């Protein structure tokens, strides 16, 4: 574990952004998530770790109701965002997803120009009053996505022409452009090379100042590097949740210890 280093960061108590209470998820007959309770803090990076198929991605997709698009998926329990139940009947997932943005495993820029990729969210949500306004939003988002300098001269080129790492940062910029409060990232670096990964990780750390970031990752090193809080999932249950340093150095549950020492996973 020598390659793991914990950045010395202040882990002062912050207000709760998302609170999940007794969440169960069924895929048809399969019980994918079993009674998960977790509180995700604002302006913090929370990492979900665990072996493949443990339900961490499924749980992440519950947080912005992306599971709604799958017919056989059934979610019960409460998930509160700023004390409002996002599974309330009155909530429109469309509005929810503007507040809870998502970045996916594989970079998925639309087959449009770089500019249109970023402007897509603001356009559909009607965030810009005019063209100048939109230009400003796009620039700001690309800057926050730490990709502005690389693409500012080719905003009218297709986003698919960028390298993998650039594409993923473009997708992050695209998610940021709608001014979300929470950013969900589903293994954002699994398709990237080490250099691109480092750039994205650095970016995630910067994003922490504005957003609550939840990241699902396969790599324990990555969780250790970028997150302040870590949740360990195993077979659909949340085994342990706590400060990253504590989870990695002094886990309470033997299953967590087995996983981080490489015995399961």
């Amino acid at each position, binding site marked *: 574990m020598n390659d793991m280093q914990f950045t010395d960061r202040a882990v002062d108590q912050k207000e709760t952004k998302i609170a999940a209470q007794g969440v169960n998820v069924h895929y048809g007959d399969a019980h994918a998530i079993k009674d998960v309770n977790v509180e995700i803090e604002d302006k913090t990076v929370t990492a979900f770790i665990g072996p493949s198929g443990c339900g961490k991605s499924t749980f992440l997709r519950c947080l912005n109701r992306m599971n709604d698009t799958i017919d056989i998926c059934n979610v019960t329990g409460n998930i509160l965002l700023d004390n409002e139940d996002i599974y309330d009947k009155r909530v429109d997932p*469309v509005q929810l997803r503007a507040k809870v943005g998502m970045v996916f495993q594989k970079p998925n*820029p*639309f087959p449009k120009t770089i500019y249109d990729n970023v402007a897509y969210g603001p356009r*559909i949500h009607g965030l810009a009053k005019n063209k100048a306004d939109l230009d400003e939003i796009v620039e700001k988002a690309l800057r926050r996505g730490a990709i502005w300098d690389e693409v500012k001269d080719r905003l009218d080129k297709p986003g698919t022409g960028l390298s993998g790492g650039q594409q993923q940062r473009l997708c992050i910029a695209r998610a940021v452009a709608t001014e979300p409060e929470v950013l969900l990232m589903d293994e954002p670096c699994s398709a990237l090379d080490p250099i691109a990964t480092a750039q994205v990780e650095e970016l995630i750390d910067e994003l922490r100042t504005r957003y609550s970031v939840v990241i699902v990752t396969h790599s324990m090193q990555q969780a250790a590097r970028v997150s302040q809080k870590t949740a360990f999932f195993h077979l659909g249950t949340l085994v342990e949740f706590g400060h990253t340093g504590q989870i990695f150095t002094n886990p309470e549950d033997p299953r967590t210890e087995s996983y981080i020492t490489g015995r399961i996973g």
Partner: protein
Amino acid sequence: MPTLWLVVSLLVLSAAGFVFGRQRAMSSAEGNAKELHSLPSYYGHNVAFTTLIPALGALAIWLLVQPMFIENRVSGMIPAELVPEGSSLSLMMSDVRRVADGLDFAVDNGVLSGAEASAMDAANTDVRAFLAGIGVALGAEVSPEILVAAQTYRQMSNTGGILMTVLVAVLALAGFAWSYMQTHKDFRARNVVEKGVMSLLIFAASLAILTTIGIVLSMFFETINFFKLHNAADFFFGSTWAPNFRGDSELSILPLLWGTLYVSFIALLVAVPVGLFAAVYLSEYANNTVRSFAKPLLEILAGIPTIVYGLFALLTVGPLLVGTFGKGGFLGVEWMAGATSVLTAGVVMGIMLIPFVSSLSDDIINAVPQAMRDGSLGLGATKSETIRQVVLPAALPGIVGAVLLAASRAIGETMIVVMGAGAIAKFSGNPLESMTTITTRIVSQLTGDTDFASPETLVAFALGLSLFVLTLGLNVLALYIVRKYREQYE
């Protein structure tokens, strides 16, 4: 038909070859199949194939070459100065064939003996009147040269037939004898048979190419003949279509092309929105239950023969439109005179193309990766925003390809326009008027009594070739676009 009997006897001989070949192999191994190099049936097959295939091949080639050969020899007999102004050698040749057929007919019916037919002399017999007497009508008087040519034609055909039978029989028997003699327990029958089968497989595969060559050549030569009789510039750039069987026709493709494109345009106007929306709904919104009944039901529309659509246009949609836009109709206007119109044919063809467009688009929309949709939905886009702004633009090239394929279908469609579009060639923008199309004219120029030496008939081949080139071009382009599109997401 003696050729039929020839084929039947070949088959019988070949079957016998199988039995004898197998027997001989077995007896050379003294009844012990293990002694043989190959399984016993391979020896039988070897004899059967060696008997049958060269003979059949020779028969096929002979049947193809003989007409060409005789045509050449006989047309050489007609002196050039005899070909009248405005006519052509091929016109004279069709007369020759007509006379020869007439003589054959007379001999078959016992009116003439074979010798009499060969000895007939134009100087002392009125051949035209004679043939008319037995029911063979001729367009012109028979000159001595034509009669002689016809007699030669007959004679050569007969000799050819005999020669062919002899050749085929000799080949079959020789094949039989040779392969039978070869049969021995050490003979590698399986390898030989497999080689033979392989060449048959290759031949079958190359038939596809032969068909294409056949299509192109059959239309190409007649088109050349057409351009000898008719000005090519008038065909491609003229503005009037007015065939006149007394000659001096104006035969231009442009008015027909206009009608064709107009009908196709209306068909696409119906089929593309309906088909596309149906595909979007089925692939993006519908649940499994809806999909599993709506999709096959829609596809029934594609399986209905075009004659049904033609009848539907002629007897249902046409009268319905007249009842709406015609005299004394529902709207009280008098815009439509008859049931056939561009709109009639276009709408019905559109209905036919709905499942074509929807199933192609369905495939194409499904090829757009789910990650695209997730990306858009994750940003808070609604489903329709995702479809309109992400999925459809991503699928656009494929959809364009599908529409081009549908257009090529529409352009080549025959029965619906023959029955629903009308017969008047004109440039008009009014969809309630009847207009005609390329396929309709091909049908009307080539049905009934046709004279393959007049430009009015030959123009159909030029039209056919144009149609072929047009649809082929569209198809190649569309398939290319669709393939490129698929590669992008693979």
